[in-house]
């Protein structure tokens, strides 16, 4: 297993190099720049600003400078938030996105897994139809509809929660439920599908024939195999959920990284775009590795080869 993980981690280096290079040049070839604005900046001031950020140097040199900085863990200054570095912005905003993502993931797992298992075990019963319909609804209703609906009901009419901000502990509830429900719907459907497939396997029939209780059959024998599709889904999903959700963060005015990820592209904040892409790509690579390890652990047919 050690060799497997070490080999995979070594593969990260060329992957990250390609991602950084592609992003660096793609973002630089987009029309408009960080200082393009409705009210044009006088040319001499633009020149000063470009010199301040090193944008007056040839592109290849800027690229090499950037690579040199990244190797030392320095993601550079932000163009939009002039007196903050990208490292500072990520350090400030990532914990918020992590908190939002973790709580939403908890909601998603607590709702999605049991519902998925129940729906599979009680296949074609009213419980299955109810859970499947809820799952379909969760997938069909986008967060930008569910979020404002929850805000309207529990924030504006009942005054139980704030509808924007991230100061009070109760500010977490509406955004986490909104984000969690959507993922819960996917998890429910994948769990149900995985469980149905496993429950038809011979070894489950054998377990039942040997007199194992239904709970033991489901929880001990079937669940492990039934969760494989969910685990595959969770790898990239966790990376997405932890690095923030642009929609949820905008609806509830949450100071997370998701908004920066999207807005940095609109603002042509070159360094922030690269910083967030590096973080996101790094998380995807690591979580995919974790998924592979977990899958081997869950499925005895797989090996670390």
């Amino acid at each position, binding site marked *: 297993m050690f060799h497997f993980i070490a080999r995979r981690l070594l593969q990260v280096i060329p992957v990250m190099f390609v991602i950084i290079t592609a992003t660096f040049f793609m973002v630089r070839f987009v029309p408009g720049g960080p200082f393009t604005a409705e009210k044009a900046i006088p040319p001499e001031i633009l020149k000063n600003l470009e010199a301040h950020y090193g944008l007056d140097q040839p592109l290849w040199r800027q690229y090499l400078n950037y690579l040199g900085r990244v190797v030392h863990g320095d993601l550079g200054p932000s163009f939009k938030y002039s007196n903050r570095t990208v490292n500072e912005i990520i350090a400030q905003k990532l914990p918020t996105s992590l908190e939002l993502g973790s709580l939403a993931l908890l909601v998603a797992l607590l709702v999605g897994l049991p519902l998925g298992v129940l729906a599979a075990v009680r296949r074609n019963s009213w419980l299955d139809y109810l859970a499947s319909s809820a799952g379909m609804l969760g997938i069909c209703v986008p967060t930008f509809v569910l979020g404002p609906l929850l805000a309207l009901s529990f924030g504006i009419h009942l005054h139980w929660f704030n509808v*924007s901000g991230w100061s009070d502990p109760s500010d977490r509830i509406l955004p986490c439920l909104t984000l969690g429900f959507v993922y819960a719907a996917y998890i429910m459907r994948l769990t149900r599908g995985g469980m149905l497939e496993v429950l038809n396997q011979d070894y489950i029939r054998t377990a039942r024939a040997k007199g194992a209780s239904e709970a033991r059959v489901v929880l001990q024998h079937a669940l492990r195999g039934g969760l494989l599709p969910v685990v595959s889904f969770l790898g990239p999903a966790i990376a997405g959920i932890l690095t923030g959700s642009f929609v949820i963060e905008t609806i509830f005015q949450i100071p997370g990284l998701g908004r920066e990820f999207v807005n940095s592209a609109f603002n042509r904040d070159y360094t922030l775009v690269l910083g967030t892409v590096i973080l996101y790509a790094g998380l995807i690579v690591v979580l995919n590795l974790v998924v592979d390890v977990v899958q081997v652990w869950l499925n005895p047919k797989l090996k670390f080869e």
Partner: protein
Amino acid sequence: MCLAACSRRETPVEAGNRAQILHQGIATEPQDLDPHLLQFQSHFNVLMALGEGLVGYDPHDLHPVPGVAERWEILPDGLVYLLHLRADARWSNGDAVTAHDFVFSARRLLSPALGSPFRYYYDDVRGAKEYSAAAAPDFSTVGVRALDDRTLRIELLHPTPYFLFLLGNWSWYPVHRATVEKYGRFDQPFTDWSKPGRFVGNGPFTLTEWKPGQVIIVRRNPRYWDAARVRLSEIHFHCIESSDTEERAFRSGQLHITENVPGSKLRDYAAQRPSPLKVAPIFSTYLYALNITRPPFDDVRVRRAFPLALDRERIVTSQIASGILPARSFVPPVAGYVYDGEAGLRFDPGEARQLLAAAGYPDGRGFPPVELATNTSVLHRELAEIVQQMWQKHLGVRVGIASKESKVFFQERMLKQYQLSRMSWIGDYPDAFGFLTVYLSDGGQNTTGYASPEYDRLALTAARTLNETERRARYREAETLLLRDAPIIPVFYDTGRHLVSPAVQGRYPNLLEFHSYQGLWLENK
């Protein structure tokens, strides 16, 4: 946590009314609180709490009132201003605010290395342009001088009737020298001096906390010279970018004042009695700019035909709840100036067709395809579609609409890679020259290619005329010429639209939406 939260709670607005804490939305987060590097005019709201210029503004009509300067003298030629600073003006750390602070601040703002985008506020000051262009390295050549601790002398290049107003602008705000120099060179941009815990200001409030992406909190400054008049204890400036989220925050009692109102909610709010929707004219015109360096708009007859074919009354009716008014000229009514010249904008499709025919396009036949560029927004798109239909109906020309991402849109406009382009202009100071300056031949914001020495002469002469009646007459001449040459198609005069809680007292609408906080308080209604 959920159970604890599940009960009707006192809202931040209700709690704020008790404790005199104002919650105000400011849409985007400021890049920095350095007054010399301000990004958006809306952020001036925050700076007005933290700083104060030589003069302040009357909250009703914006006429200059004493600020750090308790009185001033303008020598008869209008070229020299002597400002007498009050003895009790203090920085938030207790230091005295002196005339030397203003000289230092002027030197900093004009320094080429700082790269402040607001140098043009000093253009009328003797030697300022040369110093900021690094042509004259010695600041003593600039006409800003401290005669003693409490007297500042400013010398201008030419009479500037609205100059006193400029002295209240953020670009003239003083910065605390020791604090600025503690965190970097005096002319180094984006240092840490303006962060909470370090910021030293001279305004009615001090910076207490800045939660990035959330809120900026300022607290009453007991050292402010007029602290007795300040009734608010704190102001929380909430950075809520989405106008829908901001509107929900207002409805749920989290905000006293919003920065924006979503267009889709305007009608509903306007119908409420009493309505929290406050709509008032601002010094802004919505227009379409024409690229006159390329066909077909290089022909003045075509340029004149397009505005004549716009039924502005209909456009305004389509946006009824927004309170906008049809544009009769480029400059909105301001400080006694209302354009009433012969080139006033009107709807005359017959004359428009004649002009187009004279240009070689009878009933629009043979007219080349034209593209109207807007930045992505539902409002801009809707308006562009209305205008597109009018030009199709009255001129027989086909105009395509291209919605573009903002940065692409602004860049293309700046590089003159457009034919017709949406634009809004907001005047910086309540004088017609705040608008007419745009279309000077060397104007940095003039993206149309319009260059008329006659217009330049008329506009600049007007801007330097001290006699009010004479100045207005000259502005009228300049504007007549501009409207005849038609490098732009003004559409409507815009309004400021905010949701304001009835608890907010002492806040008055004004053309530039400058609302000082000294006279503002909260009262349960």
